[in-house]
């Protein structure tokens, strides 16, 4: 008998249907993959299963009993642990508190701090994470926070663990550790619902796959019985094939004059010695493990942090940006890694979000020229193929991929010379991913210089004209066209990694 059985699930938000006829069955001890484009309804489905949303119609049984979880607490009590896509923890509180929030070990009604800290350490040790569990969560990077979320979920002794894009901020070793844990869970009879956009991961760890499209479940297959191509085709129809085609058809680039040349950039322990040059019309990828200094380099380039050492040249002249506004003035744009925190303003409309940086230029005598704003907005919505009901829609209602496109448009509207993109495709689906990459390629073709920080080798290989590989805060290799392949990038990334301890954290 299935542990979870969901059938005929329907759910609409403000009369806009998100799920029309979705179903999902998970057997005990099974690792089930749930795939689909963004907007296919995966997250909604998960939130219904875990009590964050209530369904409009349909049946949900857990362990043979019909259930209707009124809130996430009820689902957790029933044995469903969830690791959400956006890391949902409390930044100001300590690691241990985050692991145990809601079920703190107590003695005589008082929190047993020693036991709590000890058990939190033990829970994290399972994932080879060794941190000061009394330190506030906000002092750790995204990967560590993700591991804390995972430790929290797994330590609850759940019967079903739901992992919604849990690997998107982890590096390969951490992913491997996570997979080990999933296998352990499976051996203990715990079921796992695994959502990921990285297809290789599905094949590595999942037993079966449930495919969703447009709010409905369109197929369930054993992983061993479906090829990658068939899986992607089922998810997207023919959209992907076309997108891939566009990407490879793009004309070969001709790099122009250098825009930025950085030498010996250093800041703190994360950034020790980085050289980097970007020419117009060129996509330069910053590759490296998490914590190798990629994001730090991007932030220094953009003036978000000041370098402690090193030089930065713009068009051959020395320059020091004190603040991002000076970099923007110089024609830089920065698409940050963390959409939710640093990018979008969730309750403002798509139009407002898109023109946020452009506002000063749209103003006539201090008043926003609505017609001009509308013109810019419509132009970019068309150009980037942003899917929305109306430009006046709140941006938080858009899927991750479309939000990313709006942010990309925000910078493009500024007509930049250099665009820095940090993990441009994180958490967005394969179709939107191809769109975003194609767009970046086209922009470079039109003379824009692009610095791309990415954890996904596939993405780097398909897009970059040049790859600067970072390791432990240093630029260790510059790979040019013809040398860019998985082996050489990985070799360079590994070249300077100390064998004991990790270079990042």
């Amino acid at each position, binding site marked *: 008998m299935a542990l979870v059985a969901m059938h005929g699930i329907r759910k609409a938000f403000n009369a806009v249907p998100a799920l029309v006829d979705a179903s999902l069955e998970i057997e005990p001890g099974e690792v089930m993959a749930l795939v689909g484009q963004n907007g296919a309804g995966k997250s909604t489905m998960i939130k219904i299963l875990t009590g964050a949303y209530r369904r409009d119609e349909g049946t949900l049984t857990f362990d043979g009993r019909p259930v209707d979880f009124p809130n996430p607490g009820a689902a957790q009590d029933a044995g469903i642990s969830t690791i959400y896509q956006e890391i949902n*923890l409390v930044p*100001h509180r300590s690691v241990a508190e985050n692991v145990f*929030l809601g079920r703190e070990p107590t003695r005589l009604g008082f929190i047993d701090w020693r036991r709590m800290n000890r058990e939190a350490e033990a829970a994290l040790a399972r994932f080879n*994470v060794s941190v000061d569990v009394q330190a506030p969560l906000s002092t750790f*990077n995204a990967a560590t926070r993700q591991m804390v979320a995972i430790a929290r979920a797994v330590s609850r002794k759940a019967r079903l663990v739901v992992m919604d894009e849990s690997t998107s901020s982890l590096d390969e070793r951490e992913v491997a550790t996570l997979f080990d844990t999933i296998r352990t869970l499976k051996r203990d009879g715990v079921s796992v619902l695994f959502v990921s956009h990285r297809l290789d991961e599905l094949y590595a760890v999942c037993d079966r796959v449930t495919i969703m499209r447009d709010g409905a479940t369109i197929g369930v297959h054993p992983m061993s019985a479906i090829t990658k191509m068939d899986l992607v085709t089922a998810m997207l129809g023919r959209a992907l094939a076309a997108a891939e085609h566009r990407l490879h058809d793009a004309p070969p680039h001709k790099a122009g004059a250098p825009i930025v040349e950085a030498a010996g950039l250093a800041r703190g322990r994360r950034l020790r010695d980085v050289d980097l040059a970007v020419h117009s019309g060129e996509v330069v990828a910053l590759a490296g493990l998490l914590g190798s200094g990629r994001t730090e380099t991007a932030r220094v380039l953009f003036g978000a942090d000041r370098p402690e050492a090193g030089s930065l040249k713009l068009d051959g002249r020395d320059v020091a940006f004190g603040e991002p506004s000076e970099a923007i003035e110089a024609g830089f744009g920065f698409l940050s890694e963390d959409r939710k925190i640093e990018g979008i303003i969730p309750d403002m409309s798509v139009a407002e979000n898109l023109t946020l940086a452009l506002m000063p230029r749209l103003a006539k005598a201090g008043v926003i020229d609505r017609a001009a704003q509308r013109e810019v907005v419509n132009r970019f919505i068309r150009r980037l193929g942003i899917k929305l009901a109306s430009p006046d829609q709140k941006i938080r209602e858009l899927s991750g991929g479309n939000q990313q496109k709006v942010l990309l448009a925000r910078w493009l509207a500024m007509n930049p010379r250099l665009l820095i993109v940090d993990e441009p495709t994180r958490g967005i689906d394969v179709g939107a991913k191809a769109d975003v990459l194609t767009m970046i390629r086209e922009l470079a073709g039109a003379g824009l210089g692009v610095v791309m920080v990415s954890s996904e080798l596939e993405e780097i290989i398909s897009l970059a004209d040049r790859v600067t590989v970072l390791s432990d805060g240093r630029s260790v290799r510059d790979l040019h066209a013809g040398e860019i392949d998985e082996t050489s990038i990985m070799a360079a990334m590994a070249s300077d990694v100390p064998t004991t301890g990790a270079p990042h*954290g």
Partner: protein
Amino acid sequence: MTAVAPAPARRTLRNPRAMARWGVVLALVALILFGWARYDNFLSEYNILSFLRYNSMFALIALGMCFVIITGGIDLSVGGVAALGSVVAAYASGYGLAAGVAAGTGAGLLAGLINGLVVTRLKIAPFIATLAMMLAAYGTALLLAGNQSVSVSWDTAFITFGQNDFLGFPIPAWVMLAAFVIGWVVLEHRPIGRRILAVGGSEDASRLMGLSVETILTGVYMASGALAGLAGVILAAQFGAGQPTEGVGWELFAIASVVVGGTLLTGGVGSVAATFAGAMLLALLFNVLNFENGKGWISLSAYWQSVIRGAFLLLFVLIQARIATGEEDD
């Protein structure tokens, strides 16, 4: 993966919030030393005890406010609720001490419950919900009192709650200390305290982690209301009358105490002990100004004192903000 793990001792020093908390304690100590050096009777038993007796009301309200602000909310109704509590307590004082205390505190609890329900069920912003409650509480207090102060019963032991001592220490001060100790234990050592902090840190995350956010928030507003009601009881017992027009500006004193103690107005971070120090600091500033007037060098009206307190508050918060950003640049 190895994460940055500073030694515990250094962490405190590097934590700007912790520094802000120490700042308020240092300022408090400095002000006490200043008063001791400058005024003859500053550290006299009489001054200390009457200071504690009078300011216990404000400290109690600051304690409730501390919890509300930690959740990211605000309670503007505390002054009105205290006035209401004092009137209700005065009427109930004829039935004895316990009845008066329970009735006044209960009135506050009820007001807090309504605040909590309006915030969590009707989804009204705390600022608006408690502003409405402030008006409603003053209105109710004035209606009950018939637009005048209500004398407490002198036949029962009620006034001892405000005017008598226990073990040589004013009863209101005992009540205040007990409330702060309980508040500290709850926030730092009981699971509910960590959940209150968590809700303030991220409501969404807390909900997804299975916390009952609505219950926690409602409870916090109830606590704030009950403490305001209790402050009203002390007011009535201390001055012998329920005072429907008292309490104006008390919410600002409470908010200022909490902020001076380094608690974030955005929620998620806060300290009961630092709130206590903050309340004492602001109250002591008044005390010092009174002594200064007594010296005869200058004569400051209450209005000027208010201006000086405002300026001091601004200066203090400014310094704290500087410390915090300076640390973060590190």
